[in-house]
């Protein structure tokens, strides 16, 4: 069975061109970029090229890019550094809907004596910027607010946030793991001090990430040891993956229009058709500005894991915000923070597309999904009245 992969916010296929670009750097050009000899030097050149490519996707300077092992490392490095450079400030601001990479760290820090404020979102997943304004003060060391949410795709007004942060002299970090490569950004004209990105969300392999660090922003390294990455991140460079990330960023730049036209149109069509065919459905974050590729839909009276497994039988890969897929008993913290009613939260499914998806695949989902929902509703003791109209 050929898979229909609609779980690109979880991870993506490595683009063939990306793989070809990195391939020689395992067995052939395996030199250490830090070595003095020509053999390491030629790898160094490719690493530099990769840095340029990543920088150019972000509208940043090459020296503002630090390669890391993943998005989580970038997030950790940014937040910990901000706390170290201004030890007198003891307040951290984040949101209730962050990825665990940020949320778990902040909650751990709160046990170490930091004051942590988690900003709320509204029913559509939009950030309460007024709350940010009212809680930020001279004690705030760092504000870490994601660029776009992984579950709903809702985009946060990061530049507006950055302005507020600057007024209080705090640092602003954004987890942009879901946004980079999907929407355009330009660090030259931005209020962001630090930005985390991850390779495997944009068709590079797993195990590579980067941290954008604005020139002039003080920094304390998270990993110490050798002088790699200008002593900002020790450890021998993962050269093959860095080269892959560079290529992936170059391609992402080229496909940005495609993402915001063709991919978005497929997402919109999927959304429209589902809403038209299936009764008692709502789109989580549907009224907010969203990433072009993400669709989170809540089906009432059915449970997410059951939907996923039936779709799985058809080769359709998606994910859910339901509790039952995670082993926890409560639905996702994002949907709960949005106040999505429990009746819907348990039956929420996320489809996340990429440039590799086709119209045919979307047609297939539009064909296969409604019977799955109908079948589960027929089995359910609730909401039986909706079946009559169906």
């Amino acid at each position, binding site marked *: 069975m050929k898979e229909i992969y609609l779980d690109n916010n979880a991870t993506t296929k490595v683009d063939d061109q990306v793989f070809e670009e990195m391939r020689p750097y395992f067995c052939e050009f395996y030199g250490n970029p830090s070595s003095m000899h020509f053999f390491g030097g030629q790898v160094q050149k490719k690493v530099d090229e990769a840095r340029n490519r990543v920088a150019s996707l972000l509208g940043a300077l090459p020296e503002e890019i630090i390669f890391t092992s993943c998005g989580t490392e970038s997030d950790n490095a940014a937040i910990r550094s901000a706390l170290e450079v201004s030890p007198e400030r003891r307040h951290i601001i984040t949101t*209730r809907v962050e990825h665990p990479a940020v949320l778990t760290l902040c*909650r751990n820090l*709160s*046990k170490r004596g930091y004051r942590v404020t*988690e900003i*709320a979102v509204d029913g559509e997943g939009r950030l309460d910027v007024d709350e940010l304004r009212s809680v930020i003060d001279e004690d705030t060391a760092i504000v870490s607010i994601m660029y776009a949410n992984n579950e709903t795709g809702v985009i946060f007004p990061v530049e507006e946030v950055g302005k507020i942060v600057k007024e209080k002299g705090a640092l602003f970090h954004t987890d942009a793991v879901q946004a980079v490569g999907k929407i355009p950004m330009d660090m030259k004209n931005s209020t962001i001090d630090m930005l985390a990105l991850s390779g495997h969300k944009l068709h590079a392999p797993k195990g590579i990430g980067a941290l954008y660090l604005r020139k002039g922003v003080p920094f304390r390294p998270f990993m110490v040891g050798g002088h790699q990455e200008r002593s900002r991140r020790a450890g021998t460079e993962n050269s093959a993956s860095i080269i892959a990330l560079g290529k992936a960023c170059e391609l992402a730049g080229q496909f940005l229009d495609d993402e915001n036209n063709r991919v978005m149109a497929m997402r919109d069509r999927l959304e429209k058709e589902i809403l038209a065919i299936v009764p008692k459905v709502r789109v989580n974050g549907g009224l907010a500005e969203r990433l072009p590729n993400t669709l989170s839909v809540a089906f009432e*009276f*059915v*449970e*997410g*894991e*059951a939907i996923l*497994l*039936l779709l799985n*039988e058809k080769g359709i890969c998606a994910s859910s915000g*339901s*509790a*039952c*897929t995670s*082993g*926890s*008993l*409560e*639905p996702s*913290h994002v949907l*709960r*923070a949005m106040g999505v009613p*429990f*009746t819907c939260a*348990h039956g929420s499914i996320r489809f996340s597309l990429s440039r590799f998806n086709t119209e045919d695949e979307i047609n297939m989902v539009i064909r296969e999904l409604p019977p799955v929902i109908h079948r589960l509703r*027929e*089995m*359910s*003791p*609730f909401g039986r009245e909706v079946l009559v109209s169906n």
Partner: protein
Amino acid sequence: MWDYTDKVREHFLNPRNVGEIKDADAIGEVGSLACGDALKLYLKLDESKERIVDAKFQTFGCASAIASSSALTEMIKGKTLDEALNITNHEIAEFLGGLPEEKMHCSVMGQEALDVAIAKYRGTAVPSHGHDHEHMEMEGEIVCKCFGITDQFLKKVIASNELHTAEQVTHFTKAGGGCGGCIPKINELIAEVMGEQPKEEHKRPAKLTNLRKMQLIQDVLEKEVRPLLWADGGDLELIDIAGSLVQIAFRKACAGCVSSGHTAKFVEQKLREYVAEDIRVEEVEG
């Protein structure tokens, strides 16, 4: 992805006995939409009203909930009511070739629905969930408010499955998997049932100076209480400490929440557990 057995998968994909029985003799309903799973079981009895001739179900829930319901109906058909009552949740899981431990509550839900159906038919009270059957006499006291689960029901599940930890109890019944406020009580129940001494998890200091007590209270609020509230979008602020009286104000989702009284009790319980027996928590406007 869950590691389901082929049998679970097969019963999920082709569930037996789905639907309702219009003239059912007995109906058992457990769970709710909010809980994430629910099962409505219909039984049809023979002339003598002793033997189950037909069983059907409607289930809202994950794959293992559906498979467990399907298995249950297959297992009880042809059995007398007394024989059916002897079926344990363990046997339901076994019928399916086993369930992941985190999913054992699905098999418990099946057995529970059966108990409820038969008890209702016979007009006796049953230990069960508290959510959806207002008309029923429930035995025991609610221990887990989040999932509406009584002490009687928990004791029964603990005993029949020989559960030793609160985590296991959560896997089997869901109790403790929400706010976690009922976990100390669950530990007590385990101790009671298994005849073990409850483990003293946190040593309360024997004697406290006033200063030390205040520090400890702040500490417990920071480390043990607030993180749990955050998880539900709430927060609290410590307003004042006067001797054993601790005044707090709720913030965010907790402020104005109908169950904040329950939350205040939870805070008090935590502080008593960690700091001193005589602590009283009062909610104030702040």
